[in-house]
């Protein structure tokens, strides 16, 4: 397995997209069952449309957030660590949609122990509309540096030697 090192990552570098879909009501039902979420807007079309005035059955936000984690995990494994992830659910995703999760390196920060990569990310629908904008910070070892601490220990301090 190829290892990713801080030294090899450049600002504006794009993380390979993670594409999921079309996400059918079967995907939504399977996910809702796995997490024991019986919220009707995810499987009861008449309730979603007539009672909650939604455009259709919604893809769970809790499912969409998993795609963000998977995107980052698969990019930095096996030697990196996802430290922080933040996102908003700005617009609804309806059953049948295909979602594209993306990420782009915004800046790099050096700490004493390892490097931090700051990313912008999100989930776009087929109309290329951003549904879930967010940010993340992942920790990556230096090519000639030690492995990351596990369990992960946040940096004690940041140096002034910020790369970008």
């Amino acid at each position, binding site marked *: 397995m190829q290892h990713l090192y801080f030294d090899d990552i450049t600002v504006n570098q794009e993380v390979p997209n993670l594409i999921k879909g079309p996400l059918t009501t079967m995907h939504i039902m399977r996910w809702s069952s796995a997490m024991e979420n*019986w919220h009707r*807007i995810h499987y009861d079309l008449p309730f979603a449309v007539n009672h909650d005035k939604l455009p259709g059955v919604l893809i769970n936000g809790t*499912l969409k957030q998993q795609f963000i984690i998977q995107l980052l995990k698969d990019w930095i494994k*096996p030697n990196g660590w*996802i430290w922080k992830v*933040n996102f908003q659910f700005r617009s609804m995703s309806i059953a049948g949609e295909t979602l594209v999760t993306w990420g782009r390196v915004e800046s790099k920060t050096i700490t004493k122990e390892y490097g931090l990569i700051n990313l912008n990310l999100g989930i776009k629908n087929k109309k290329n509309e951003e549904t879930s904008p967010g940010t993340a910070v992942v920790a990556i070892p230096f090519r000639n540096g030690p492995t990351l601490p596990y369990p992960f220990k946040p940096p004690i301090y940041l140096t002034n030697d910020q790369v970008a």
Partner: protein
Amino acid sequence: MSLLPKEALDYIGIQTKFEFACDVVEKGAVRRYAQGIMDADPIYDLPCEENNLYGGPVSPLIFPTHMFRTAFGGQDPIQRNAFNSDADGSEGVSTIQGLPDIAPLKHLSVMNGGSTFEFYRYAKHGEKIKVQSRYADIYEKKAKEGYIIIVVTISDYFTDEEELLLSVRRTQIRR
């Protein structure tokens, strides 16, 4: 028109005691979860080179947040609401990890507004998980379609040996 009753603000600062998940991190539950998110990473399955660093098979990073469900023999919210056509099924979902429902907002629908996660380590198969949560903020905001209420909670997830797994700041939209 404003939606936010003053009584709802009394919930800010309410914090739960530690609550334990009714089950440990189970291999079968991890399988269903990983299949649900369509992530067949071998670290979730059997001991392998990739999960050696983590001490063996682990669950997906967010898995511990979904372990706090109705215990065997516990009250059944589905049956309790079987004759209520307005029940949206979110009972037990809107009550985030032991926090009491915000009674003055109970008539409003719930939507997931987003989250901030901080991760420290994976939960391993067989580990017992506990959580402590608090209402961090409740406020009103004007949106395109009118007023909405934002409810912010913070939950910290630990193993029963006090190791911090992750911390989550959640934003719920009530409208």
